[in-house]
């Protein structure tokens, strides 16, 4: 059990450092409270977006929190991919250029896992393989229209 946890943790932490610095131009890593006996402690993030000194996770901005969370989810995906990912407007706190970065990242990861994302932001919609349009009919029921882009 300790072996399995440690192996997974090391790989996820390695991925996290790489992905976090790619997304935020800063440095970040995962920190175990008790590396000798992980099950007695917790797991935290030691992050410095754009290499700013950060006191506490709560002082991060809304966008920085979202980038940290997404970097964590992606670093797990790279180590142990889940069969599918369903994200509901995870880009709501991000500025335009961060939406582009996250969209590119999802495009890359979507070669090994299925991504089903809800988004209202143009750069995210533009990066997808295909778009499902959703509207309301006059009788108030939901209609889904498949817009199949070239599945290249």
């Amino acid at each position, binding site marked *: 059990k300790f072996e399995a946890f440690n192996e997974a943790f090391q790989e996820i932490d390695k991925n996290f450092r790489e992905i976090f610095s790619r997304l935020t131009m800063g440095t970040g890593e995962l920190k175990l409270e008790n590396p000798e006996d992980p099950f007695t402690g917790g797991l935290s993030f030691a992050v410095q977006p754009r290499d700013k000194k950060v006191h506490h996770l709560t002082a991060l901005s809304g966008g920085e929190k979202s980038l940290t969370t997404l970097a964590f989810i992606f670093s797990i995906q790279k180590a142990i991919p889940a069969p599918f990912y369903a*994200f509901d407007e995870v880009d709501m706190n991000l500025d335009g250029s961060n939406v582009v970065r996250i969209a590119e990242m999802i495009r890359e990861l979507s070669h090994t896992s299925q991504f089903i994302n*809800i988004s209202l932001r143009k750069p995210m919609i533009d990066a997808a393989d295909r778009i499902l349009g959703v509207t*309301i009919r006059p009788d108030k029921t939901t209609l889904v229209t498949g817009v199949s882009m070239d599945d290249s």
Partner: protein
Amino acid sequence: MHITQLEIDNFKSFGRKTKIPFLPGFTIISGPNGSGKSNIIDCILFALALSSSRHLRAERLTDLLNLNSDRNIAEVEITFSDGTIIKRRIKRTENTYYNYLYLNGRSCRQGELLDFLAGHGIVPHGYNVVMQGDINRIIEMSDTERRKIIDEIA
């Protein structure tokens, strides 16, 4: 084991039977506010029994039945690429309701389904599903809870 089709009938704003095909790769769902996008994610969480009614923005399970129809059954069926089919149905009666779960055509209990899904890398608190407004949950949870994410997947 990705999702290849979702079939929804009388669940939330899906008052009419709806079949949604899914392909591997990157699919975006977009549309106006209130049109039913998040309800699609709710369908997935409902059928896979991964979420309580509170998380599905309903007080009781029977609130998930389409409000505008007088039909007493709501059903969601998910088909996966490896042929697995999971279906869940709620049936409302005068005084109570019934909740049915099917794994490949055979009725099963929630525990059995969750074990089956865990074997395929789908766990209840798995970070593969992020609901609307929930993106900062992982930052705001306790350090111990966060560590448990890795426990479950390792």
